[in-house]
């Protein structure tokens, strides 16, 4: 299968001034395939946001290349189709909101890609419903609370229905219910075939993905399914990360009852394991 995004030896540094440069990404290569659900984790300042901005050409590498659907992000003529394919929700919602009315902001991207009006109305309504912001559609976005802005920012990208969405800590200011709702949306979109890339500091959120990429100092240090990644508890702790709390609980229990599996990353798995263990013990 053709990858939707392919990075080849990507290096990038920010120029602070004429003399100083901060090298952030170092020789990164990986591919994302259509339909994947990928979480990117790493400590503060490890380069996650910088990497995300490379995925649709907001930043372009100093050396190496990023290919989206086979187009190089350095190719100016392809910018638009690249961004139509890969949408980004930024870490900071204020930076994302363009228009002065919530619904017009959601429509902004659709106008740019020339969606006909009837269809546009439909998509705006849909996207606002999904993030539960319909009652706010006529409000000016700069007068919303932190979490409300974050929801509007998500709606703006959802409405564009790109092939792939990059969420850069898009749920950081949402309450746990809001976060669950957004996770469900991600799951649903992914089931409908959309590629999802999410940057997060919540390990339980990362455990939802099909694949985790761990970055440290601008390099990929681990890449694999969550179950594999979360087996490396110590390495993760050295990278200032952790394993989900259900995994931690399973490990504690495992140390007492060694038939209780410690290979657990999701809540429902944990519950199932308790049930299984319980039944077996009763059986014997």
């Amino acid at each position, binding site marked *: 299968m053709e990858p939707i995004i392919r990075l080849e030896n990507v290096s990038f540094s920010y120029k602070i001034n004429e003399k100083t440069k901060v090298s952030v990404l170092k020789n990164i290569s990986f591919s994302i395939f259509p339909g994947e659900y990928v979480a990117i984790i790493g400590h503060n300042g490890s380069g996650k946001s910088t990497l995300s901005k490379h995925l649709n050409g907001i930043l372009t590498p100093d050396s190496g290349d990023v290919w989206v659907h086979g187009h190089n992000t350095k190719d100016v003529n392809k910018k638009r189709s690249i961004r139509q394919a890969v949408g980004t929700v930024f870490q900071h919602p204020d930076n994302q909101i363009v228009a002065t009315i919530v619904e017009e902001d959601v429509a*902004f991207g659709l106008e740019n890609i020339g969606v006909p009006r009837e269809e546009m109305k439909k998509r705006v309504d849909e996207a606002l419903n999904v993030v539960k912001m319909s009652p706010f559609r006529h409000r000016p976005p700069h007068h919303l609370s932190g979490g409300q802005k974050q929801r509007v920012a998500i709606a*703006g990208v959802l409405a564009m229905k790109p092939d792939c969405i990059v969420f850069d800590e898009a749920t950081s200011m949402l309450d746990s219910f809001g976060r669950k709702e957004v996770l469900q949306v991600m799951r649903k979109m992914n089931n409908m075939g959309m590629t999802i890339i999410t940057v997060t500091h919540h390990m339980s959120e990362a455990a939802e993905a099909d694949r985790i990429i761990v970055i440290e100092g601008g390099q990929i240090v681990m890449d694999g399914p969550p179950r594999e990644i979360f087996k490396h508890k110590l390495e993760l702790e050295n990278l200032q990360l952790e394993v989900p709390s259900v995994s931690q609980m399973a490990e504690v229990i495992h140390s007492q009852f060694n038939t209780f599996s410690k290979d657990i990353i999701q809540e429902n798995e944990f519950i199932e394991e308790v049930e299984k263990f319980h039944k077996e013990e009763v059986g014997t």
Partner: protein
Amino acid sequence: MSSEFEISRSITIGQYVPTGSFIHRLDPRIKLLVFVILVVAIAFNTSYFGNAIGLVLSLYLFWASKIPISYGLSGVKPAIPFIVILAVLQLLFQGQLFSDGRVYVDYGFVLITSESIRLVVVSAVRFIEIIFLSSVLTLSTSTTELTHSIQSLLSPLKKIKFPVHEISLITTIAIRFVPTFAIEMEKMMKAQASRGADFGTGGWWRIVQRTKEMFPIIIPLFNIALSRAEDLILAMESRCYTPGGERSSYSVYKAIAKDYLVLLVGLFFSLLLLFYPFPF
């Protein structure tokens, strides 16, 4: 008593307030056109009578947009000190240029004549009219509508390779930026006040004090505004905005009879203000 930091509250330009009034529902292109011709006409009219008409007209429009007049006035309030200073300076120093008419005071370089008084009064009133009119326009027209209308009004110029799209975009961003700027300023003042800076001790009329307090926020404010502008452009680009690209539109614009009627009325007033020889 609310917060001394609610600056965005008194910025009426660039805020969109949906009230669903008759003015809101006008075709934005026509609205913009009428606005332009009215402002031009007002700018050229120097009679008391003409500006009285202009003032009444702009107040009427404000009223018709169903936006509380008090809100419009709060937009004029921060400008009052400047209008007053400007008026005094003009009165004191520009008399020599307008020495016609009856002479009231002639002392050293200070020459106050009926014409120089007219200049001062008319330009102050004119300023207020223009603030009101631009407030009505931006309060009743969303930025998206504005961009589309600027673009379509300028589109005939495309033939002579005039960068219509870019100009309309820049204008919109500029208008969009007025409230952003106010909000950034509010945030900056809150940030500094939280860490021990002094704000909000003097009333708005204490110009010197207020100005002095403003100095430490000006430079960081510009830095932040610049980086906001950069972010804004990035955000637009990352949602597929391409300068000069074809766009569809969220709202439809179709001028109907009532829009043309408004245009006619606007034209009438503009011509009146421009060419009618008002008695005083």
